[in-house]
C-alpha cells in the first residue's frame, strides 16, 4: 500500500500486519527525508548513532520529545515553501511550539482529516453549531490553537453558528433560530471540552434549561486537565450533557499541533482510534520501553503526514493506556487507547531561584 491507495479506502480497515508494513515503509522514507533536509534532526540521529539505519519495526524509530518544538524551529523545507505556521496554545509567559507546513504537508493533512472525520460525520456537510464565541476568530491576540481548531473543523459543517456571545454566555435566541431552521436534520456540534462544560453545560444546569439536541453529533477536543481538576471524567461529561441536551452521540478527540495527521477520535465504545495514517505506542514512564495492552505509560505518536518538519515520530508528555488492536467492538481496525492525563511536572531543584520560582508559582 502507498499513501494514495490508503486515501482511497476507509481509514480504519487495514489490519495490524498491512498497517505496520505501510507505516514502516513510509516512516523510513520520512526519517531519511528529514535527515537530509533538517540539520538539527540529522544532529540528533547522529547523537544516537542512527545515521543510515533502516528501522524494522515501529518501536525502533527514534522519537523526538514534543517539547523540542518549543525550543527550536525545526523544518525540513525551504522558508519560501512554508505556507502555514501553526503554534500551540499557551499563556504569554510560556514558550509555544512552532510548526511549519509546506503545501504538500498541508494538503495531505487536510485529506487525512477529511477521511477520518467523514467516518464519523458522514460525507454530507451538516449544519454546524460551535460552542464558542465568534470573537475568538476576530481577536488576533486570542487567535491561537482554539481559533485554528474551530477553523479546521468548520470545513466539515455548513451554516456555522456560534452558541456563545462575547461574554461567554449562551445566546439562546441564536440557538433556537438555528434549531428551527434545521428541524429534523442531523446537526454537528463542535467545541473545546472545557468550554462545553464550563460555559455551555454549567449555564444550562444553573438556569435549569433543557435543550433538545438529541439529533446531533458532538465532537470535542482540548484535553481533560481542567475537568479532572473538577473531578469530571469522560463518563460524567457524557451523562451530564445527555441529561441537559439529549445528545448521545459524543466523541472526544486527541491530537496535537506538533503532529499533523494524528487525529484520534473516540468511538462509540469510548476508545480513541488510530487511523491508517498514524499510530500510538505506549512506553514505560521510566525505561521508555514499549508496553503491552493494559499498562499505563507515556504516549508516543507516529504519523505519515509531517513532511515539511521532522514531527513524524514524537514522544508526548501525555499518559495513556493501550486498550487493544484490531478488535474494538465498534468494528474499526487499528490500535485503540485511552488518555489518562499529563505527566506530573518535575520538581524545581538546586540552589538557584530564591525569587524566580516563587514568582512563577504566583502567576
Amino acid at each position, binding site marked *: 500500500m502507498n499513501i494514495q491507495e490508503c486515501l482511497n479506502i476507509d481509514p480504519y480497515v487495514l489490519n495490524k500486519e498491512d498497517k505496520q508494513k505501510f507505516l514502516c515503509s513510509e516512516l523510513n522514507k520520512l526519517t531519511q527525508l528529514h535527515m537530509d533536509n533538517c540539520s*538539527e534532526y540529522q*544532529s*540528533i540521529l*547522529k*547523537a*544516537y*548513532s542512527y545515521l543510515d539505519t533502516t528501522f524494522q519495526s515501529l518501536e525502533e524509530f527514534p522519537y*523526538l*520529545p514534543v*517539547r*523540542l518544538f518549543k*525550543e*527550536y524551529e525545526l523544518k525540513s523545507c525551504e522558508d519560501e515553501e512554508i505556507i502555514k505556521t501553526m503554534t500551540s496554545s499557551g499563556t504569554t509567559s510560556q514558550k509555544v511550539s512552532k510548526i511549519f507546513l509546506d503545501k504538500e504537508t498541508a494538503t495531505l493533512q487536510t485529506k487525512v482529516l477529511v477521511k477520518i472525520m467523514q467516518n464519523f460525520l458522514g460525507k454530507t456537510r451538516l449544519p454546524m453549531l460551535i460552542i464558542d464565541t465568534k470573537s475568538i476568530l476576530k481577536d488576533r491576540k486570542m487567535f491561537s490553537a482554539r481559533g485554528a481548531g474551530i477553523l479546521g473543523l468548520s470545513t466539515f459543517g455548513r451554516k456555522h453558528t456560534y452558541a456563545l456571545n462575547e461574554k461567554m454566555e449562551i445566546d439562546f435566541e441564536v440557538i433556537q433560530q438555528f434549531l428551527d431552521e434545521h428541524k429534523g436534520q442531523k446537526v454537528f456540534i463542535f467545541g473545546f471540552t472545557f468550554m462545553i462544560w464550563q460555559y455551555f453545560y454549567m449555564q444550562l444546569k444553573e438556569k435549569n434549561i433543557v435543550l433538545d439536541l438529541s439529533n446531533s453529533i458532538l465532537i470535542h477536543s482540548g484535553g481533560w486537565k481542567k475537568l479532572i481538576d473538577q473531578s469530571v471524567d469522560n463518563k460524567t461529561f457524557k451523562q451530564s450533557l445527555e441529561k441537559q441536551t439529549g445528545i448521545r452521540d459524543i466523541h472526544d478527540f486527541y491530537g496535537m499541533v506538533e503532529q499533523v495527521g494524528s487525529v484520534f477520535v473516540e468511538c462509540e465504545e469510548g476508545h480513541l482510534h488510530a487511523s491508517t495514517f498514524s499510530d500510538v505506542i505506549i512506553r514505560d*514512564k*521510566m*525505561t*521508555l520501553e514499549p508496553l503491552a495492552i493494559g499498562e499505563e505509560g*507515556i504516549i508516543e505518536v507516529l504519523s505519515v503526514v509531517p513532511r515539511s518538519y521532522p514531527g513524524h515520530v514524537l*514522544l508526548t*508528555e501525555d499518559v495513556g493506556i493501550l486498550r487493544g488492536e484490531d478488535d474494538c467492538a465498534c468494528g474499526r481496525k487499528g490500535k485503540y487507547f485511552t488518555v489518562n492525563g499529563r*505527566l*506530573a*511536572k*518535575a*520538581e*524545581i*531543584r*538546586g*540552589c*538557584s*531561584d*530564591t*525569587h*524566580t*520560582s*516563587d*514568582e512563577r*508559582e*504566583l502567576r
Partner: protein
Amino acid sequence: MTIVFPQSTDSIENICIEKRVIAPFSDVLVDFVDDVSKHILNESTFKQYPELMALAFWMRRGHIKKLQYYFMQKQGTKLLLGRGIVFHLAPSNVDTIFIYSWFLSLLVGNSNIVRISDKKNIQTDLLLKVLTLILQQHKYEELQTRVGIIRYGHDDEVTSYLSRMADTRVIWGGDRTIEHIRTIPIKATATELTFADKFSFAIIDSKTLCEEKKLMLLIKKFYNDTFWFGQMACSSIRSIVWVGSKEDNIQAKNKFWNALETYVKQQLPEEITPADIINKLVAECSMAIEQDGIVTKMDTPYINRIQIEDLSQANTHLHCGTGLFYECEVDGLSEVFQHISKKYQTIAYYGFEKEVLFAALQQTLPYGIDRVVPIGKSLEFSHVWDGYDLFESFCREVEVWS
C-alpha cells in the same frame, strides 16, 4: 509574609535597632549552635534526612571549636568584630543553606534576619520548629533581639525595608534573583555577598581508576556527590573530565560506568520522576543540536551520558540534573584548565595529589574555580564558599594604631 521568629512585627523593628555586637564565639553563641545540633541528633524524625544530619554534625561543639580555632588564627593580633545586622536571602530549594549562612554570621557576633521561601517543605518546617523552641529559652535572651526569621515569596516591599536596615546583605543565587534584588538599594555603609548559579565537574585520573581495587568506595561517594539535591546544587558534579592516555580513558570509562550503573540500579533514586526522564531526553536532543553532543546509551534510565569534545561544550543552560553527565577526555591535567569560566565552582577529583592540583592551579591561573575537593566532598559545606571566607565577610577588621 509570616514572621516565624520573633512572633510580632515590632520585634523585627527591635532587631533593626543599632546595638552593640556580641564577641565572636562567645559562650552563648557556641552553646546555642550546639543545642540545635543536639536536638537534631537526638530526635529520630531527623534521621531520614541525610542533609540535616550532616548539618547537625557540622554544628557540634567539637566542630564549632575547630572553626573558632581557625577564626582565632586568622584574627591573630588583629581585632575582628561583627558587621552588625546581616540580612540573608536563602534559596528555596536547598533547605539547609539558610542555617549555614546564618550560623556563620551569628558565631562572629552579628544580628541576623533570615528570609526563607514560603514554599512548603517538611525539612524546613522541622528545622524551624527546633530553632524557635530553643531560641525561646531564657538563657538565650540575648539572642532573642538579634534573630528574625521571615517566610515570604516575592515581596519587594519587605526586601526593600530589610535591605535598608542591613549592614550586610547575602543573596543565595539564582542569577536572575541576584540581578533583581540588586535593583533594591542597601545602606551606603553596607556590603553585599552574592552566590550566583555555578557548576561543578569531576576530574578522574584514568590510570589510577583502572588499577583501583576498591572501586565501590569511589562509586558510593560519586553517587552522593551527584544524585543528592537532584544533581542541581552548585557543587553537584555534572561533567566528568577523564585524564589519561586514550586506552586508559576507554578502559576507565567502561569500568566506572558499569560499576555506577550496577550501584544506581540497587539504589533506584526515587526522587527521579518520569518528568525528569523526559527532561533528560530533551537535554540530549538539545545538546546534539547545539554542541554536537553524542549520546552513550546506558541500560538504566537513571544515568544519561553525553560525550562532548571539551569542557567549553558543557552547556550549563541545557543541563537538567537528575543523572545527566557530560564527559570528555584529555591527555594531561593542564588541558583541564583551558576552558574554565567564572561559572565553575568546584572540581571534585580522584587519583590526583592535592599538591599537584595546587601547583597546576598556580601555573595555569584559571579565570574560574573556587574549590577543589576529593570526590565525595562536593556537597560538604565550608565557611569558605564561592571564593569568600564567610567569617571575614561577616566581620569588619578594626585597626588600632600606635
